[in-house]
């Protein structure tokens, strides 16, 4: 027997299953990053000295990364909108752009990490570097997860467009919600770690 409400929303909740599922998942993600941000606050308040982010970190590179990630959120929305307008060709274009931008972000992040390691700044160097590597590393893993999901939706997963276009559009929407969340986490990380 088919499971109901995989495609059309349930009338009384107004949601299809996956959309409720991803919102719940994102709520748990908020708690995950919320706990880490709280730890950051507690450690910083308790520390005798705490460096300013710009003393150790590369603000121009991070600014570029912020722009890259926000742009990728825009292309993610465009890919979903293209599907809603039944244009699979433009969907591929925008989804490809989203993945490419995410990879650009990871490459720039990689350069930043390498520069830190060159100066001997490992996570063990100070509590500041420890929280920097932990938060950005965990965020980076979330980006990698998003790239994997989006690549699946661009490649083999897109076969569903032929069999069940409405459900495929839903999948892209759900992946998009996750992607915007990952973007949003960076919007918090950037000022907290680099600017404050």
């Amino acid at each position: 027997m088919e499971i109901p409400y995989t495609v059309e929303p349930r009338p009384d909740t107004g949601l299809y299953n996956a959309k409720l599922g991803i919102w719940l998942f994102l709520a748990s993600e908020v708690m995950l990053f919320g706990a880490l941000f709280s730890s950051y606050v507690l450690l910083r308040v308790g520390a005798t000295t705490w460096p300013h982010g710009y003393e150790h970190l590369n603000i121009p590179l991070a600014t570029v990364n912020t722009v890259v990630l926000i742009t990728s959120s825009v292309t993610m929305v465009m890919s979903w909108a293209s599907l809603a307008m039944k244009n699979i060709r433009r969907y591929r274009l925008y989804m490809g752009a989203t993945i490419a931008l995410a990879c650009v972000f990871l490459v720039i992040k990689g350069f930043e990490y390498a520069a830190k390691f060159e100066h001997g700044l490992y996570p063990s160097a100070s509590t500041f570097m420890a929280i920097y590597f932990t938060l950005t590393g965990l965020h980076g893993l979330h980006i990698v997860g998003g790239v994997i999901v989006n690549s699946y939706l661009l490649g083999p997963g897109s076969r569903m467009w032929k069999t069940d276009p409405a459900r495929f559009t839903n999948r892209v929407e759900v992946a998009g919600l996750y992607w915007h969340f990952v973007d949003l986490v960076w919007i918090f990380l950037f000022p907290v770690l680099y600017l404050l």
Partner: protein
Amino acid sequence: MSEAAPGAHGVVHTDQHAPQGFWRTYVFSQDHKTIGIQYAITALLFLLFGFTLMMIMRWQLAYPGQAIPFIGKLFGDSRAPEGIMLPEFYNQLGAMHGTIMVFLGVVPLAVGAFGNYVMPLQIGAPDMAFPKLNMMSYWIYFVGGVTMLSSFLMPGGAAASGWTSYAPLSVIATVGQTVWLFGMICLITSSLLGSVNFITTIFQLRAKGLSFMRLPFFVWAQLVTSFLLLLAFPPLEAAGVLQLMDRLAGTSFFMPSGLVVSGQALANTGGGNPLLWQHLFWFLAHPEVYVLILPAMGIVAEIIANNTRKPLWGYRSMVYATIFLGFMSFVVWAHHMFLTGMGTVISSFFQATTMIISIPSIIILTALFLSLWGGSIRFTTPMLFALAFLPMFGIGGLTGLPLGLAPADIHLHDTYYVIGHFHYVVAPGTLFALFAGLYYWFPKVTGRKMNDTLGKIHFWLSFAFINGVFMPMFIQGLAGVSRRLYDGGAMYSHAQGVMHLNVFMSVCAWCLGLAQIPFIVNFFWSIRKGKKVSDNYWDATTLDWAATTSPPMAHGNFSPLPEVYRGPYEYSVPGNGRDFLPQNTQAEVH
């Protein structure tokens, strides 16, 4: 649709499916019933294993420094040379007993097994909302469990810093702690996926007509439990990641400056905060207490309504109390930390919230007690366990109040009183409710009922011995015996007056182990030879009993999906021929 349903017992027949292969049917199944059974079997094995660890520890507590008889030599020289348990091994057993019982035994049984099997049936759903995710939850849990077990084989043995893994002790511990952290991250991930699935299923897949106030209380309990798991576990995951960084990358999140261990200064940078771990840990672990108890309350509510042949007393207030309990459980965590020096202002706040959270628990317990009033009670085996749950959980809850008051906690903190308190909540409380659930839903799963004589032997022996184990702990705790002593307090003069209780408790614990034999025998015997019973053996009203007995191991529980016309507990409605009206009975009573 209207004509589709209810035969004599409100039975809706089950969808038949083409058979799938062995692996897809029994191992990598996506069917919620099979996954529920997988959870149940795995969790029961872990419960037995965790209990065995404790039975070994109880030897050391009763007869400190004497060789463990029969099996002592099997542990090897690194754990128990000449059969005499080393303190390091004792610590490993203690830490792993707690971890296994909570994270691998009780929660997977209460939520993974009962939630998975019963909840979709009770809401009239064809399956969980995300069957693949459900399968993944189970297998990640399984991997986490195997990881935990493997830690016993690591150099230096398993994690030994208590189930709470307080820093900085846990950070400088041997490699078993790293394995513990990886295991925990698996278990947390599994719980998160499961809770997303449970909540979505309850919101989205309720049968037509099944409004929220018509949900069986068990479903409400599972819903609130899932929210707790969803929102409380991520901070522990964060804490686990931070502790892994401390252990593997040499950071100092939980390591204070200038820490000296065994006369040697540690080489970390310092600047961290050991209290941070405690905050993050208890932010999960207090809601976790309600994760342990709420599904148990749900099971007990179902069984009491069914066996008193009466509606639950105060169903609505029970539901509201449960929701309130869920909210409050997020703001009481630091009552575990009154003695950490976090300050009296913070202590006062958490003391107040702790007193407030006892109110909804008492509302639920009172409603369950009052449900017995004037009922013609059927003393079936599940009902005996459910009835025993009420005073046992009552003792557990009431003894918790002095711990929630900061001044009283100064004396009682970290003593055997604490052990007695939370074991009364979880062992004769939750575990009894889980046994009640096993006896109650066994006919639904297998089509046969468990033997009542063996069931009653199991009940009375367990009931007697489990009180023999935990009641003396209050006495020892009040005398000031600390909970983590390798010799049970033998080296302290203030403990001498209550030392003799150790032998009594240990004997009771071993007898409790023997008392489980009737259950194990009954379980396997009844699967093959138990008395065959009808679809709705207990004459129950909820939708799980509207599905056929032993629904096939494939998607689809009902054909067609049932429709709901009434509340969950319409027992003994006047003017009706039978003393129960299943939720999917359409006919109005005149």
